[in-house]
């Protein structure tokens, strides 16, 4: 046993010396491996990079979490509470009407916007960034980026909200001073819009409907009917992208007509599948060719060195140990090929990411290989190289020590 280990060490050393001695041929083999492996690494890096970036973008865009009510329902409070308790639900705030309530807005310097859509909001609204304060109570609102831009206001400033109604055949005007609690990021909502708390939205709707609204200081009008209010629709967001399809499906099963951006999610999944398929196709072809050519080269090398190998048998190396000679060389060549391939990959990935830098945020990459995938690629290459050496190993096993004694 100790003999075998010592012999194996000697064979490994001799195999290495032979590779170095024929360094030109060894380099060619390593380059052949790198020539297949490097493009595969780049391709896989592109696949991971593109899919990861698209997925990250989708995840970071709350609109992809939204489940949109297409028709009015009749939703009671109990149902809403049960829905909010559903772990797949990230955020839900009801609104009373199908058509959004609107409000005219005017800034201090006279700039104004008419018929700004009002949307309900509440603490935890995914459209609000971490630094955006959600409007509370009856005296605050949040503006979309475009609306704030048009009004020339920013968070902390005040705007005047103006609502009209016709009551007793006369036109009435309600003016409210509203503090801008936040201006939402441009990417989360396009168009003019304002987010207000549900109580303010309800109060404004009551006012429009001709009721007295004491909380806004309006005494004129009928007293609001009490009783459980029912809601027509929801602003509903799933907790995660993965929860979107299931949640939408369960709502559809309850008879609600809802839609999601699942097509976008599907698209990314399809891109992932398509790129994976392409990768497997190209990898399969390239690797098969590479394994065959490496196998043939190693075999030819063994045949060329038959007498040298027979000499090693003659001086006492066992055939099973000597069989490791081409396998060790394959592993050595593969290691050099892997090093070259990774060097080429890093250069290519850097160039690709630099080219697309303009379209990417700082944490995004078009081409990125995860460490795990890199290690797997290296391990697979080593295994396949040793596998490719099997023909050569079989050839070594057939070498007789007597072959070294004279030329045939």
């Amino acid at each position, binding site marked *: 046993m100790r003999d075998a280990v010592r012999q194996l060490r*000697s064979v490994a050393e001799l195999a290495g010396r032979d590779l170095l001695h024929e360094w030109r041929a060894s380099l060619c083999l390593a380059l052949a491996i790198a020539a297949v492996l490097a493009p595969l690494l780049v391709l896989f890096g592109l696949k991971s990079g593109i899919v990861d970036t698209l997925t990250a973008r989708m995840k970071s865009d709350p609109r992809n979490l939204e489940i949109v009510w297409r028709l009015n329902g009749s939703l009671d409070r109990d149902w809403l509470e049960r829905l909010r308790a559903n772990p797949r639900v990230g955020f839900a705030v009801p609104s009373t009407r199908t058509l959004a309530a609107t409000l005219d807005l005017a800034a201090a310097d006279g700039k104004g916007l008419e018929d700004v859509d009002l949307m309900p909001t509440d603490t935890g609204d995914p459209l609000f960034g971490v630094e955006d304060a959600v409007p509370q109570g009856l005296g605050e609102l949040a503006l979309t980026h475009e609306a704030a831009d048009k009004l020339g206001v920013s968070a902390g400033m005040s705007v005047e909200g103006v609502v009209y109604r016709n009551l007793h055949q006369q036109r009435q005007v309600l003016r409210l001073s509203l503090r801008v609690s936040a201006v939402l990021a441009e990417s989360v909502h396009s168009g003019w819009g304002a987010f207000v708390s549900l109580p303010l939205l309800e109060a404004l709707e009551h006012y429009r409907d001709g009721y007295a609204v004491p909380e806004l200081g309006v005494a004129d009008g009928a007293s609001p009917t009490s009783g459980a209010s029912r809601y027509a629709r929801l602003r509903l967001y799933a907790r995660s992208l993965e929860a979107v399809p299931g949640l939408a499906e369960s709502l559809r099963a309850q008879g609600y007509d809802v839609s999601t951006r699942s097509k976008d999610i599907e698209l990314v999944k399809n891109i992932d599948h398509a790129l994976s398929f392409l990768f497997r196709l190209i990898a399969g072809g390239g690797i098969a060719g590479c394994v065959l050519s490496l196998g043939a080269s190693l075999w030819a090398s063994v045949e060329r060195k038959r007498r040298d190998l027979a*000499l090693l048998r*003659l001086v006492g*190396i*066992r055939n099973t140990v000597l069989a490791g000679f081409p396998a060790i060389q394959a592993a050595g060549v593969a290691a050099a090929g892997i090093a070259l391939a990774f060097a080429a990959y890093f250069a290519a990935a850097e160039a690709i990411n630099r080219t697309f830098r303009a379209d990417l945020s700082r944490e995004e990459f078009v081409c990125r290989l995860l460490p795990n995938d890199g290690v797997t690629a290296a391990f697979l290459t080593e295994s396949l190289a040793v596998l490719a050496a099997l023909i050569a190993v079989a050839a070594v096993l057939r070498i007789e020590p007597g072959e070294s*004694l004279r030329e045939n």
Partner: protein
Amino acid sequence: MTSLLELAGVERRRGEGEGAFTLEVGELSLRAGDCLAVTGPSGSGKSTLLDLLGLVLCPDRAEVFRFLDRDVAALWRSGGDGGLAALRSRHLGYVLQTGGLLPFLDLRENVELSRRLLGLGPDSLTGELLARLGLTHLKAKKPRALSVGERQRAAIARAFAHRPALVLADEPTAALDPSLALEVCRLMRELAAEFGIALVIVSHDWALVRRLGLPELRVIPQAGTSGCRSRLEWVSDA
């Protein structure tokens, strides 16, 4: 003194068709330090004899085949390469017709190949062999940088470096010019005598063998009913 090598009733058939022959070793024994030359016409079976003695050719039949008190016939029958490989590596040295050096090792590493494979440390013998064979200044050179004569001397140093019990030389001078050939054979004989190593030189060059003055064992082919059979015969000093 006990025998180093003992053969009796050993047979081996070689070749196909018309060139086929059977080498028959009636009785042959060799003691430690013995030197002998094997001669005979080409195709008679000299190399077959050497391969049998070198433990690289399996005998078809062997009544007795002992080397250093090990039953070689039994080792062949057991099939595994391990026992024979161990005997070859420790106790045999081979000087090949040509080459016998690994191209990727330098001369000194080639000479020490067997020692290294056996796990033996460096030995003053290597240096002494290199000096005796006039190779000291070439020890860092790769074989391809050496002349044919230098390579042959290096191969001799390699065969002796691990102090084997028996060195087998198969036409060691075939590639050398006659004056060099005699010099090389004398060197081998000297080395063998000095270190108590038995030496078997196979050569078709009868004149050379005579001049060396070695006991001569001739392989004699004889046509017979069941194909050509070769026997061994000692040549008495005439």
